[in-house]
């Protein structure tokens, strides 16, 4: 066990510290010690129950004094640790709020600009909804949250949305969105063909969070790429999004991957749950935009007479 972990276990949030920090004890112990000391000092020579049992009182007072000193030291250290946690919590909250606020702001600015020049005959849905832009922005802001809030090294982050075409005769998968387009990612076709986290999500329809990718490799739900093999450590969160617009299905897999370091302590269940909850909140925002994107795709591309004709032609040719 390293020193930091030991230090945190002793002075961090544990039952002893919580007991010491209880408002009742904080008020009552110093008062009792003060009162007891005053009694011994002022009436020590006059009162028989003090003079006759001097040994007991010496022991009692020494014990109370030691307990008070130890308690104060523990309390002082735990308070300083707690203030550090509070400061970090503020940073995290600010980073998460910043992510959500920027998404809202971008939309609000667009609505504001479009509303000024809106004419009654214009297609408002097409005019104000730009999920493609919004998704790109959401991925960038998620990366910022990981850097600013969680302290993840930017070069270790990979955030993607894989899209699939379940209507095609041979299943096709491609990267719909990549946070860093310059970065080399594993081919989506490979990811979806082998035992990967994305293919597991697609098959089960459940989201999954692997705080330690080694566990995923062991259980056959992580596809080892050169990048993850070199980094060894890492975490991954995957969420499948399946959207049905009338008779057409749109499939996406949203992934947050970190290689070379873990996003949380993989053996701390509470930490894993906390990380998963935050990632799931982010994924909900992504899902919302994917709904809009799919509806827009259907409305202006796949659902049009031209789109349906193309579909039919594909079926006949196949």
């Amino acid at each position: 066990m390293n020193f930091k972990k030991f230090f945190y276990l002793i002075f961090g949030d544990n039952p002893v510290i919580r007991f010491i920090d209880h408002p009742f004890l904080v008020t009552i112990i110093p008062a009792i010690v003060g009162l007891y000391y005053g009694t011994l000092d002022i009436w020590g020579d006059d009162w028989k129950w003090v003079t006759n049992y001097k040994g007991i009182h010496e022991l009692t007072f020494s014990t109370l004094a030691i307990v008070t000193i130890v308690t104060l030291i523990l309390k002082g250290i735990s308070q300083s640790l707690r203030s550090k946690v509070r400061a970090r919590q503020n940073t995290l909250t600010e980073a998460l709020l910043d992510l959500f606020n920027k998404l809202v702001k971008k939309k609000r600015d667009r609505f504001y600009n479009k509303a000024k020049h809106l004419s009654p005959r214009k297609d408002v849905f097409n005019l104000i909804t730009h999920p493609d832009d919004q998704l790109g922005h959401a991925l960038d802001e998620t990366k910022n949250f990981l850097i600013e809030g969680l302290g993840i090294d930017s070069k270790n982050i990979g955030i993607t949305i894989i899209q699939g075409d379940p209507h095609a005769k041979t299943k096709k998968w491609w990267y719909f969105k990549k946070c860093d387009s310059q970065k080399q990612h594993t081919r989506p076709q490979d990811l979806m063909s082998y035992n990967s986290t994305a293919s597991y999500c697609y098959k089960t329809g459940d989201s999954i969070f692997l705080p330690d990718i080694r566990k995923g490799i062991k259980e056959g739900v992580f596809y080892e790429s050169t990048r993850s093999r070199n980094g060894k450590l890492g975490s991954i969160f995957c969420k499948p999004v399946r959207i049905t617009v009338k008779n057409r299905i749109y499939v996406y897999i949203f992934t947050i991957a970190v290689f070379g370091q873990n996003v949380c302590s993989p053996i701390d269940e509470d930490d894993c749950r906390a990380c998963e909850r935050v990632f799931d909140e982010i994924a909900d925002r992504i899902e919302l935009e994917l709904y809009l994107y799919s509806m827009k795709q259907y409305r202006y591309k796949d659902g049009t007479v031209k789109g349906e004709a193309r579909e039919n032609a594909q079926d006949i040719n196949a």
Partner: protein
Amino acid sequence: MRKILMPEKGEFRKQGKFDYIRSAAMKLLASNIKENKGNKNKVVVLKALPK
């Protein structure tokens, strides 16, 4: 369903560096997020996947 696949304690020898302050802060942040997703989206913590 939302799944978390965690390793057992001691399953892997090499562990990454962990920031315990960040971990405590993250737990506090997550505890403030209210979830109203019902049973359909309940979180399941697994130590191994069912074969």
